[in-house]
């Protein structure tokens, strides 16, 4: 215990003496959070429309104005030529071309059914898919309203043809929608808890790996290994300071999340920190393991970077785990980042309690114990 105290003092002295590290520890998280929370977003923005209206009727104009009124689409250019629209799309000036063919209004009047063509730039498939579902809903609603005869265009249709639309008094299902926990559909509120996870992971895993490898490179690790220090004491002395710092970073990050991004914190912060404690055991363990398999800080950085990249992509941070194929969903079960991201989101955004997230906590505990166990064994082997 006394030895541990001396080693801890040394670690803290070294960390706080290195200005790069101090910057990395306390300034980077804030900047990272500010940039990442704003940059890491799949929030779908309004699509720029190119309008090719060959019909020139009140109904065709109604289609365009309905799309624009939703706020999901912005009318940006128009011409009677689809070819020019194509060219504008190739030049990335527009995201969608609306083509309303001649006779659209006539068809509506005659057969109560008209079709419009919506051409999306689907390079970003996910965004195009979301826009597609918006457009469907808007057009369906417009049709309903036209049929119900509640719109002024109705009279235009009525007067333009001999076949009036039969207005049946049939019942409708009135669907009201409510989004709980995030009624404004603010993507940042969803991402920030996840980004906090990235933050503490970077600190925990990368710094642990770099810190130990640095001693390896400097030769001081050998020096310590010939002293009577117990391996466990050495590992504790390495992990405790970084654990403390990661926790401090989490606290800073939570403050920024609250003050800058107004992320709701509906659940218990105590639970968040308790989960972080368990999670970090695994994250630091992986850092320790990396330090045993590499020789230089450069390699440590690369291995950490590659590992984290894959873990992050598979964690559900960006795309929902349940959208993944089965093998990927299984792999998420042993991915500590996946559990911690899910836990952070549900505790902060939904106010989940200890019992709601017990499964995640248990998984984190098991992964942490396994990771640290393997790392310590590997460490013993590599320094025997």
């Amino acid at each position, binding site marked *: 215990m006394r030895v541990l105290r001396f080693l801890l003092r040394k670690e803290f002295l070294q960390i706080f003496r290195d200005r*790069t590290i101090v910057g990395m520890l306390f300034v980077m998280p804030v900047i990272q959070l500010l*940039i990442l929370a*704003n*940059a890491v*977003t*799949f929030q*779908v*923005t309004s699509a720029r429309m190119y309008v090719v209206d060959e019909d020139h009727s009140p109904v065709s104009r109604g289609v365009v104005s309905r799309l624009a009124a939703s706020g999901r689409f912005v009318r940006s250019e128009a011409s009677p030529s689809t070819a020019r629209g194509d060219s504008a799309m*190739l030049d*990335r000036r527009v995201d969608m071309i609306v083509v309303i063919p001649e006779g659209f209004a006539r068809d*509506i009047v005659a057969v109560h*059914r*008209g079709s*419009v*063509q919506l051409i*999306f730039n*689907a*390079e*970003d*498939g*996910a965004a*195009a*898919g979301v826009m*597609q579902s918006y*457009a469907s*809903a808007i*057009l369906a609603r417009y*049709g*309903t309203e*036209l*049929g119900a005869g509640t719109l002024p265009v109705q009279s235009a249709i009525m007067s333009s043809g001999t076949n009036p639309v039969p*207005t049946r008094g*049939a*019942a*409708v*299902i009135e*669907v*009201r929608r*409510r*989004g709980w*926990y*995030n009624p404004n*559909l603010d*993507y940042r509120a969803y991402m920030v808890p996840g980004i906090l996870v990235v933050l503490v992971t970077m600190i925990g895993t990368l710094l642990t790996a770099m810190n130990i490898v640095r001693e390896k490179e400097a030769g001081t690790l050998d020096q310590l290994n010939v002293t009577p220090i117990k391996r466990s004491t050495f590992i504790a002395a390495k992990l405790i300071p970084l654990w403390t710092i990661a926790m401090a970073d989490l606290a800073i990050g939570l403050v920024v999340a609250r003050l800058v991004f107004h992320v709701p914190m509906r659940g218990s912060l105590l639970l968040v920190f308790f989960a972080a404690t368990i999670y970090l055991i695994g994250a630091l363990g992986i850092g320790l393991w990396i330090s045993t398999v590499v020789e230089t800080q*450069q*390699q440590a*950085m*690369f*291995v950490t970077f590659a590992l984290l*990249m894959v873990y992050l992509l*598979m964690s559900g941070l960006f795309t929902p785990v349940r*959208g*993944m*194929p089965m093998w990927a969903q299984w792999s998420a079960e042993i991915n500590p980042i996946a559990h911690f991201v899910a836990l952070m989101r549900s505790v902060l*955004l*939904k106010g*989940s*309690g200890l019992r*709601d*997230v017990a499964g995640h906590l248990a998984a984190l505990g098991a992964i942490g114990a396994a990771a640290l166990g393997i790392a310590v064994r590997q460490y013993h082997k590599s320094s025997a």
Partner: protein
Amino acid sequence: MKFSYSWCAPDRRRLFSMGNPQQLWRRNSAVRAFIVKEMRHILRDRQTLTILLLLPLAMVVLFGFALRNDITDVRVAIVDPAPDPATIALRDRFAGNPRFSIVAISPTNVGVEPLFRRGDADMALEFRSGFGESLARGTPARLLLIGDASDPNTASMMAAYAGAVIAGYQSAIGATGQSIQIVPQFRMKYNPTLESVNLFVPGLIALVLTLITALMTAISLSREKERGTLEILLVSPLRPWQIILGKVLPYLLLAFGNVVTALLAAWAVFHVPFRGSLILLLVSSVLYSMVGLALGVLIAALTSSQRAAMLGALVGTMLPNTLLSGMIFPIASLPGWLRPITYLAPARWFIVIARGIMLRGVGVAYLWRELVVLTVMLVLLFGAAVRSFNARLA
């Protein structure tokens, strides 16, 4: 042969002059030897090499197989206070739809919140009492659709799916007020199946090129600087441009090998389209790589240690080039204050080029602006790199 100290004396003309042909020949064999040495360094570091080769492939696979926004299994909780034939029929529609599975049915909504908090349900469908009666009477029958909107995108998508099921039911029972149908015909240009891998592969090329050119060059040069081996090279008869070439060429080759592997994997396994000119893509890749290399050299010149170079390269190249370039996250989604910064990320311009060529099949006519921007960046960065190297070592 005279020792070249031109590094120390910033004589720009000497820096780039090639000397007479015979000297040039002799020096070129020196350059070759130097390049071979550099290649050996790279090949010897197995770990880094493995990661460099495997990471892009792993990412193609992940983006191709694992990462999709589409949820195929929406878990619904049904709240039905007074079941009647109409509510049961609609419930059956949800139960029969492969996209939905019903996880709970209860007469009150008190159970919904815990289900959401545990993450056991994604949405709740709450019938108002007298649903069937209203429907029969012709007054609006009310239905509440509650989504767990903590993930906004998924929530809107699921709501749209649910809306479609309800609309289907409406038209089946003829309860539709929608006597007029506006039928949208969608065409998904350039990516008809909406595969995210198509969007990502061009970005991946940018990622790999950045990683190898900017990051590796910065670290490798600063390591030589730290160890003092750079000084040895500088007092050798090699010209500075030869040293830079020797440092840079192996990484360039490595980067290209990598790009080709990733492209082949993307094409063979995921059928990522390649619609435009391969030559234009390769030329732009070289241009982009050179920008990355200049950035790497500049960072190495400006930093004093390997660690600082690593940090500088991460913050100065990886961060903007991955997050602020539209590689994964669309630039249009960024807030206004962040968008101008993206203009400084070389990858932003390169990704437009790569996507344009691969997905839209366009040529120089549509991409000349981006090519001009990259060229200007290259000239500025290279000038700055040479200048700062001279200044540092003088």
